[in-house]
């Protein structure tokens, strides 16, 4: 049995200081959440106001806890999972109210009425560069999740967060993260590291096949989240096979394997967007560093990293792997406090609290803004269902 080293002294701030640090986030989130939820309606109804207030308070309680307890992962994960579940509900309601059902018909495709999601981005870049067109059946500027809206969001997120988008912005990631938190201990402890190259192989295949066929092949054949968003109407053997593939991949990678391994298996062993987004870790100013002098080699960080972004070599070099999502789990779990958020260009491990705050502010604000509107809408639909008997 491995004996863990004794815990290092933590520098936990007092309640007053934590509240002070939380106040700017209270104001920023009030601006963006209240603005997005209540801004469009001239005379907002009581349920909408209640949903927005509930969301805003809940989000800020989580941020306060993040500051006060000096723990990142747990509080982020709660918000992240709620965001993912809310997204499924809001998406289903929005699509059903505009199209009558969540199934995608050929007519919806020809009319460009499909909401755009970030997973498509790697597939559209090459055709966009060569033909100046987007190979996705959405709308450039209009409607729910327009193409340009999501592209701008992705550019902003990539500049600031890099692959931290996968832990602080992706509205699907919370599903396998949620499942990875269900079991107390992993039943499958060892997964061959070679599997972490699979997302890169899938990325290469879908980029090439989409460019050749000028259609988003990942969405048509492999996306596990079609199982919970919108899948093509089953009208032929091909659409039946596609639907079975979506369901099997979703069940295996988003539910079963995360429960068995306690890892985000879909994100780390399958998602081609995740692999692609790893490249943006080269752009962002934030990273995570390991203090090789403090590290005692207990390997706890390697065992707990949800995305296989740490290995023995990282403990020697002091750097995480390119796939790091800066979810904060290793930082929280390290018994020697040898792992820190870091601002590139600055001396590592010198002012870890400042680096953490500088990262947490934009990252949490992104999650709160992107997720806040969705969570508030989900609460609104639930309250509406309770009070009127219908979500629509």
């Amino acid at each position, binding site marked *: 049995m491995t004996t863990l080293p004794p815990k290092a002294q933590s520098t936990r701030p007092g309640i007053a200081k934590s509240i002070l640090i939380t106040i700017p986030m209270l104001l920023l989130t009030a601006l963006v959440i209240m603005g997005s939820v209540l801004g469009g309606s001239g005379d907002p109804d009581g349920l909408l106001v209640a949903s927005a207030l509930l969301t805003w308070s809940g989000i800020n309680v989580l941020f306060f806890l993040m500051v006060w307890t000096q723990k990142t992962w747990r509080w982020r994960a709660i918000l992240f999972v709620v965001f993912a579940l809310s997204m499924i509900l809001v998406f289903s309601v929005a699509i059903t109210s505009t199209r009558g059902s969540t199934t995608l018909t050929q007519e919806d495709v020809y*009319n460009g009425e499909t909401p755009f999601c970030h997973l498509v981005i790697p597939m559209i870049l090459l055709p966009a560069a060569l033909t*100046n067109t*987007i*190979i996705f059946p959405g709308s450039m500027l209009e409607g729910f999740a*327009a193409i340009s809206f999501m592209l701008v969001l992705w550019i*902003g997120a990539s500049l600031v967060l890099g692959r931290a988008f996968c832990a602080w912005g992706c509205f699907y990631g919370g599903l396998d993260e949620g499942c990875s938190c269900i079991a107390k201990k992993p039943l499958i402890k060892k997964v061959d590291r070679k599997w972490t190259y699979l997302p890169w192989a899938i990325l290469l295949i879908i980029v090439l096949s989409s460019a050749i066929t000028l259609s988003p092949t990942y969405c048509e054949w492999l996306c596990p989240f079609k199982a919970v968003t919108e899948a093509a109407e089953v009208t032929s053997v091909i659409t039946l096979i596609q639907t079975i593939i979506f369901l099997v991949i979703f069940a295996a990678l988003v539910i079963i394997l995360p429960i068995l391994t306690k890892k985000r298996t879909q994100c780390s062993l399958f998602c081609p967007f995740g692999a692609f987004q790893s490249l943006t870790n080269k752009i962002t100013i934030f990273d995570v560093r390991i203090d090789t002098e403090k590290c005692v080699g207990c390997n706890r960080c390697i065992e707990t990293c949800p995305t296989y972004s740490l290995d023995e070599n990282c403990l020697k070099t002091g750097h995480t792997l390119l796939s790091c999502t800066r979810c904060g789990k290793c930082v929280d779990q390290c018994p020697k406090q040898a792992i820190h958020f870091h601002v590139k*260009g600055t001396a590592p491990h010198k002012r870890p609290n400042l680096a953490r705050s500088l990262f947490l502010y934009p990252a949490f604000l992104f999650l709160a803004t992107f997720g806040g509107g969705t969570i508030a809408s989900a609460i609104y639909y639930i309250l509406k269902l309770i009070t009127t008997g219908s979500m629509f």
Partner: protein
Amino acid sequence: MQKVKAFLGYFIAFLGVPIVLATFMGNQFFSEALVKATGLEVSPWIIGGELQETLPREGYRTLIYAPVFMGLIGETNEGFIQIAWSPAANLPENISEEFDVNKDGKMDFKVTLNTREKTGTLDAYSADVISMEGPFNYKTKDTLKTESLAVRVTIKRALKP
């Protein structure tokens, strides 16, 4: 040098919050700017090519879209031409129209529609006309977004005008 790098690092890190705020609050502006600057549009393979010709009929119009042969590089050997009848609410029960895609004076195919039952048939007059998909409900891509009934006829590149 280390101090300059550290200063720059912290400065860029401080920009994180304004960038996130701008991303969300300025999204409409940046989205429109992105589309305007790049000229990006949805692929004609999906939304059906540009409107090329409008033929006025009694109470409705026949809309003929540009044939689509766009490939990643160059053109594909097979493409399609989309034809729509608009507005759908004003269409007669039966429509039968012939089309000359390559404008050589000879008709290339005839489309016969039953607009109530939403069924249609294709009569190909040329070996370069392959098949037909539809009719399906289609919203015109102009500002009116009129509900129409459309078909897509698969054709060979030899028919391109």
